[in-house]
């Protein structure tokens, strides 16, 4: 792809991007959110027509009028949000659009073909399984198989690790290397530097719609790529001083609660959160973290034990009660729990803060006052948006997250629960969030950081607990435990086994 330009009303999404991918290599396309990666790939895949520039596949200039043309030319796309139908079986999803001749489906033959192709690439999967029953990692496997089934020799993966656990990410790297060995060309879109280093041969960096550099992965550094991507020097690690933990602010004893799915109840024997520390919670997704968060924020009733915030018994309180006791909460899912996307920013700031002054007086919302405060928060937290009247939907993920943090800290809480606070954010925004968490800690507040990114937990935490099987299976002072040890505990080993291993 050379000199690609694509304009949308009001923005130039691609402003002369060149991406040259050699056959049989893994080529990373690195750029922040909004840099133009997705637009570029949508052009390559025939969903958009470029205003200028040439797309060529195997040295032949092409002009696709839709995904079908791209597929016929040997391209396959694995979208970040999977294009899979949960209620269909693996086979049905894979053959959709390419079901074979005849009006009546031959499911047996189709399942056999799927099994053959899955075995030949070593991507084992049950063709009869329903996609909704599969883990995210296996669903991605179905997406890859779908592309291979349709004859793809060039595979585009859009942010493929966004939803995966560390182990699944390792598996994915293995799969990609196997596909490469088999002659498949892979374009790997990401904004994570670690992934570029882990899997790619070459990397093209784009910023604000322009190609800013192409490097051979083994000859560059993470710092160089980060600076290219952001356009200024960024710090990849967070500078912080040792913690000085104070009094216990949140305490849970023998806590139990019903699970969201399944039968195993959440069971927390002892969890304490002290002022002036960051407590990291690590674990593989689906081991009770979601339940723990809901319990600690008052969304899920407890069935036993005690839970206190600031020595106030919160066992029977609702989310408002937790707020009153001094707790703030950055939810995992910005779009569903953090914001009302169609509300303007100032109404979003009001959410959870509408108990009284300064936003509400005598039961009435003070619109102008709230807007003034919102404007101030936007300035303080670098939320880039035209005005407090802008709908939250129009903001980038990073700016949305900054707004949530601003709102949650506005109450001056004693405890901040930060759940996956950097998920889906780009490097610049991650840097901001991390610094903010450390700043909050240094102000003497208690911070709980729950993340499925083990590196993030290890970088930021003063104390780390591991969750596995709906329990806390290990507790460590940061710096006194290895990544490997935590990984084994996360995988369900017990502490003594992990020590021996």
């Amino acid at each position, binding site marked *: 792809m050379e000199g690609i330009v694509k304009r949308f009303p009001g923005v130039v999404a691609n402003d002369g991007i060149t991406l040259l991918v050699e056959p049989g290599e893994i080529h990373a396309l690195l750029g922040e959110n909004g840099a133009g990666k997705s637009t570029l790939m949508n052009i390559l895949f025939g969903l958009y027509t470029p205003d200028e520039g040439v797309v060529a596949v195997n040295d032949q200039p092409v002009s696709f009028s839709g995904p079908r043309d791209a*597929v016929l030319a040997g391209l396959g796309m694995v979208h970040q949000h999977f*294009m899979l139908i*949960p209620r269909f079986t693996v086979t049905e999803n894979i053959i959709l659009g390419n079901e074979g001749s005849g009006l009546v489906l031959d499911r047996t033959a189709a399942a056999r073909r799927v099994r053959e192709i899955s075995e030949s690439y070593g991507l084992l999967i049950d063709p009869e399984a329903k996609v909704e029953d599969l883990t995210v990692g296996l669903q991605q496997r179905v997406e890859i198989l779908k592309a291979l089934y349709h004859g793809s020799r060039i595979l585009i993966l859009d942010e493929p690790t966004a939803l995966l656990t560390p182990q699944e990410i390792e598996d994915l790297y293995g799969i990609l290397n196997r596909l490469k060995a088999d002659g498949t060309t892979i374009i790997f879109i990401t904004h994570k530097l670690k992934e570029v280093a882990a899997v790619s041969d070459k990397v093209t960096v784009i910023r604000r719609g322009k190609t800013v550099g192409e490097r051979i992965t083994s000859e560059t550094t993470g710092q160089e790529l980060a600076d290219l991507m952001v356009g200024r020097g960024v710090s990849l690690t967070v500078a912080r001083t040792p913690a000085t933990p104070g009094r216990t602010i949140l305490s849970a004893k023998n806590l139990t609660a019903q699970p969201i799915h399944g039968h195993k109840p959440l069971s927390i024997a002892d969890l304490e959160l002290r002022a002036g520390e960051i407590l990291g919670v690590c674990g593989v997704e689906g081991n009770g973290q979601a339940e723990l968060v809901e319990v600690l924020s008052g969304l899920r009733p407890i069935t036993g034990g005690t839970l206190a915030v600031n020595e106030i018994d919160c066992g029977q309180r609702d989310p408002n009660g937790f707020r009153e006791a001094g707790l703030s909460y950055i939810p995992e899912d910005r779009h569903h729990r953090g914001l009302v996307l169609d509300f303007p920013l100032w109404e979003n700031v009001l959410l959870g803060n509408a108990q009284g002054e300064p936003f509400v007086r005598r039961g009435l919302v003070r619109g102008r006052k709230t807007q003034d405060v919102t404007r101030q928060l936007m300035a303080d937290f670098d939320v880039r948006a035209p005005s407090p009247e802008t709908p939250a939907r129009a903001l980038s993920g990073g700016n949305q997250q900054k707004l949530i943090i601003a709102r949650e800290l506005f109450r001056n809480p004693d405890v901040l629960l930060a759940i996956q606070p950097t998920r889906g954010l780009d490097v610049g925004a991650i840097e901001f969030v991390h610094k903010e968490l450390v700043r909050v800690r240094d102000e003497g507040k208690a911070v709980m950081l729950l993340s499925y990114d083990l590196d993030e937990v290890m970088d930021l935490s003063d104390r780390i607990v591991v969750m596995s099987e709906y329990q806390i299976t290990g507790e460590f002072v940061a710096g006194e435990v290895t990544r490997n040890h935590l990984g084994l505990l996360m995988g369900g080993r017990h502490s003594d086994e992990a020590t021996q291993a």
Partner: protein
Amino acid sequence: MDHFFTLDLLTRILRMSTPLIFAALGGILSERSGVINIALEGLMLIGAFFAVAGTYWTGNVWLGLLIGVLCAMAGALIHAVWSITFRGDQIVVGTAVNLIALGLTAFLVQSIWGTAGGSDRVSSLPKIGGMSILVPLAFVMVPLVAFFLYRTKLGLRLQACGEHPQAAVSAGIDITRYRYLAVLGSGLLAGLGGAYLSIGNLNYFTLDMTNGRGFIALAAVILGGWNPWGALAACLLFGAAEGIQIQGQSTPGFPISSDLLVTLPYIVTLIAITLFVKARSGPAGLGRHATTS
């Protein structure tokens, strides 16, 4: 009460279920493709009216049936153009079609027959065993629709359009075409259901003769989990409620007041929906277009 549980009751149940089955199958087609179809009521009414009008004009009940069904499909086409091509809100579009159907048929009854209440009598479709020939057809349609949905290529694609329109597009499926076909199919089936009411079960048209059956059919779609066999069971349940109601009214000395009895089908619908629907959910892409901003 000796006269209550008779062969008559069974016949009534089958007869009352028939229009519901047709309309529910139509609803399944449309909703499985991702288009909410609350216009079933109006499409049935159009089918019912034009089947009579067509018979009246041509003197041939079969041509009347054809005209009724084609007109219901035309109504469905309006729904499709508005909701798919112009992306109108599907609930609003469906409501509009229902209102148009009600107004149009009332107006045409007045201008053709000069009465406010209903049409003249026309001939009706042939009967087998005291039941219209459309009754067995409705029951035959159930396995046909099920086979189409679950066993054919087109059915798989149609379901994909309803479950995840973006995924369907990225698989190269022209979802607009599939949704048009599905909505037209729902017009055909709802039209058959309507025509059954007028020239199958009876031999004339009265104003608003569908009397909420399109909505009851929609309830059957939901209660049956968007599955033809499930919908059949639900239609039989609702048909039974209506059959019992009519049988009760015509049984001398039946202990429940007839005013209360006529509400039975609606009460059964409400109870069934409350009890059984919680765990079910429809096609995930219902009412959604392929690209959302």
